[in-house]
């Protein structure tokens, strides 16, 4: 198979996929789960349970009422002990439903039998509605509600479904393990997604450092019509939606537009499996696979319920080392550092990384030497040094003109900067301000 990749920019951080060989291990239910009502790139959901209520596993506990929001379900059976503000793995304080757990008693209608069920006779509308009620969000980390992504605007047409199995972040292996161990469910999920989108073709993009997953899914795909596998050269940030579309199809999503503009919809492999469970087993999104890696004694991949404190996973991986300096929710390039290990796993938590003290702190930045490495590294062909400078002097007008909003915050510019400049910090500030200005203009 000929390897494809995107053209502009990109970097090659050390892959460090040390947990790639570790089979998925199911985490025992913790005594208490912490379920934030906002686990989505969108509006918070509204709790529909109150303190003292008894809930079953899979029962709806917070309803997504806004257009861009997602339902939240109880990941365990038990009693709601509190509803209060708790810092979650994104680092923000959010309304959180706290449940004291007991043995699983599943909500009615959920099929817990593991048998693969390929056939799906539902209509596209029924599929999307099931996905919506199951509270499924993009599981690669962006957590955009899946049902919204599947609703193609009437004036646009989707013709190709791209399945993101790239996992370009160093360390993370949760998608890799999922592709190896749950390939059939993945394939069935992709077929359901194809049906929902009314497309005939789906391509799974996988980077070439996961040869076993490529071979496995390639073999499986022969018994599913319309699904194929595309091996990709290893290059960060290939898992970025626009980069993946460019790599596989050669099409460029226009600035400020959605992938459907070029006929594509992209879904993560984890999302596809969640869709399978929601549609075929009536199972809402209450668990996910999380890689625990970095500076821990037993790197591993866990199947864990949403709301499980990160400390529970770290304990299973040998505990938090004495010299731990940083705990990251997500990958090292785009993940968020959290300030304590009690934060819960949410729908977007693809990995938990522990870094030792010596690499936890940034280097002291020095002056820009205008080497232009950031310009060469930027996958969106922006000029990070310039955008950072413009943000620093608060010239929002020029920031906008130089397309600051196109930044995907992949961090490649900062990764290559020989002066250790906080480029992305400034660019994020610019994005926030320019975003505000653009929104105020619409009103």
């Amino acid at each position: 198979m000929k390897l494809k990749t995107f053209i502009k920019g990109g970097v090659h951080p050390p892959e460090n996929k040390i947990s790639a060989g570790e089979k998925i291990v199911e985490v025992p239910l913790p005594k208490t789960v912490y379920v934030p009502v906002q686990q989505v790139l969108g509006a918070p959901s509204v709790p529909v349970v109150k303190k003292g209520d008894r809930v079953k596993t899979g029962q709806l506990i917070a309803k997504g009422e806004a257009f861009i929001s997602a339902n939240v379900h109880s990941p365990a059976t038990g009693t709601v002990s509190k509803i209060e503000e708790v810092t979650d793995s994104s680092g923000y304080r959010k309304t959180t439903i706290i449940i004291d757990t007991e043995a699983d008693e599943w909500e009615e209608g959920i099929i817990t039998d593991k048998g693969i069920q390929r056939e799906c006779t539902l209509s596209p509308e029924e599929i999307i509605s099931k996905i919506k009620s199951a509270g499924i969000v993009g599981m690669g980390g962006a957590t955009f509600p899946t049902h919204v992504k599947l609703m193609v605007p009437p004036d646009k047409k989707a013709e190709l479904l791209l399945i993101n199995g790239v996992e370009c972040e160093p360390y993370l292996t949760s998608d890799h393990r999922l592709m190896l161990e749950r390939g059939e469910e993945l394939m069935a999920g992709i077929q359901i997604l194809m049906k929902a989108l009314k497309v005939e073709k789906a391509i799974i993009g996988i980077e070439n450092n996961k040869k076993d997953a490529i071979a496995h899914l390639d073999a499986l795909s022969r018994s599913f019509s319309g699904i194929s596998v595309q091996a990709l050269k290893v290059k960060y940030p290939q898992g970025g939606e626009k980069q993946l579309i460019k790599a596989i199809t050669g099409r460029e999503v226009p600035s400020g537009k959605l992938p459907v503009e070029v006929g594509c919809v992209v879904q993560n492999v984890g999302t596809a499996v969640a869709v399978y469970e929601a549609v075929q087993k009536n199972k809402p999104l209450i668990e996910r696979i999380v890689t625990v890696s970095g500076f821990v004694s037993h790197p591993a991949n866990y199947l864990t319920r949403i709301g499980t404190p990160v400390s529970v996973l770290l304990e299973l991986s040998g505990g938090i080392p004495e010299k731990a300096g940083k705990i990251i929710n997500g990958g090292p390039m785009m993940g968020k550092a959290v300030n304590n290990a009690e934060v819960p796993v949410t729908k977007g938590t693809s990995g938990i990384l522990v870094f030792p003290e010596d690499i936890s702190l940034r280097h002291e930045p020095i002056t820009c030497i205008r080497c232009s490495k950031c310009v060469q590294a930027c996958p969106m062909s922006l000029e990070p040094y310039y955008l950072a400078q413009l943000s620093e002097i608060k010239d929002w007008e020029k920031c906008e003109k130089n397309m600051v909003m196109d930044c995907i915050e992949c961090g490649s510019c900062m990764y290559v900067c020989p002066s250790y400049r906080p480029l992305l910090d400034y660019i994020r500030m610019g994005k926030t301000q320019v975003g505000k200005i653009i929104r105020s203009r619409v009103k």
Partner: protein
Amino acid sequence: MNKYVVSLSPHIHGREDVRKIMWGVVYAMIPALLVSIYFFGLDSVRVTLISVASCLLVEYLIQRFFLKGKISITDGSAVITGILLAFNVPANLPNWIIVVGAIVAIGIAKMSFGGLGKNPFNPALVGRVFLLIAFPVQMTSWPKPHALFSDGVVDAITGATPLGILKEGLKNGMSVDQIMQSGEMPRYVDMMLGNMGGSLGEMSAIALLIGAIYMFWKKIITWHIPVSYLGSALAFALIFWLIDPVHYVNPLFHLVTGGLMLGVFFMATDMVSSPMTPVGMIVYGIGCGVLTMLIRLFGAYPEGVSFAILLMNAFVPLINAGFKPKRFGEKIVKK
């Protein structure tokens, strides 16, 4: 409860570092330095040491007593300027003139603008051009090269550079062929190896090329500037040579003489004073190439590399503004 470091992503950093880049350039200049020592002996060592030491000292004094800030002379950038300045002067230049050059290079061209990363012009070139204009006699009296320590006191004999011989000959109405056979002109093979009159660092095209390959390998420089600079300069020379070979010398001669190779690989590629975008770099390279040849063929000076690069340095802000990278998804944006 344990508290951990909280910072924004990315949480890892590549192994690039300013210090590493700067010292990488220094290492890349070693082959050319060794060649100059071979041909000019201890004089070459003297010029280089005085130049590097005075550049470091000037930077130190300014940071210590004027700016009263952090001393950053170990970052390697002043060492580069020192070596490059030495590479651009004759081996018999008196010490005090070298010191003046270092003061101009570091004091005026670099530190006045705010130090590393802020200077619009290549500091070594500013120093060199200042010396050329202020001390034209000393700056154009070239010692004849001699093999290392072969005989003691040949330093007294001075000769012109091949470009100088050519310019002088053409001015006296000779044809290129006559000049080439006049006996004054070194053979091509000597020019390639560096056995000719000239500044310290511009002697050997081959040694400079070795350094350039090292910088490519270490990703310190990209192809854009060297290829467009060399390509446009040689194309320019080729056109005139094809039209009138009696009065214009062939491109190979231009390639191996004077400071072209040094300029192309070590001075035009200076990160601080060159453009930021790939397209901009190509435009800048072409500008350097054309200006170099305009000066060499039609100017009063036999050599034009320094002037060409400095002039193009001045255009860099405009080039950066005018030649933006083609943004991802730009071609289909409808306004």
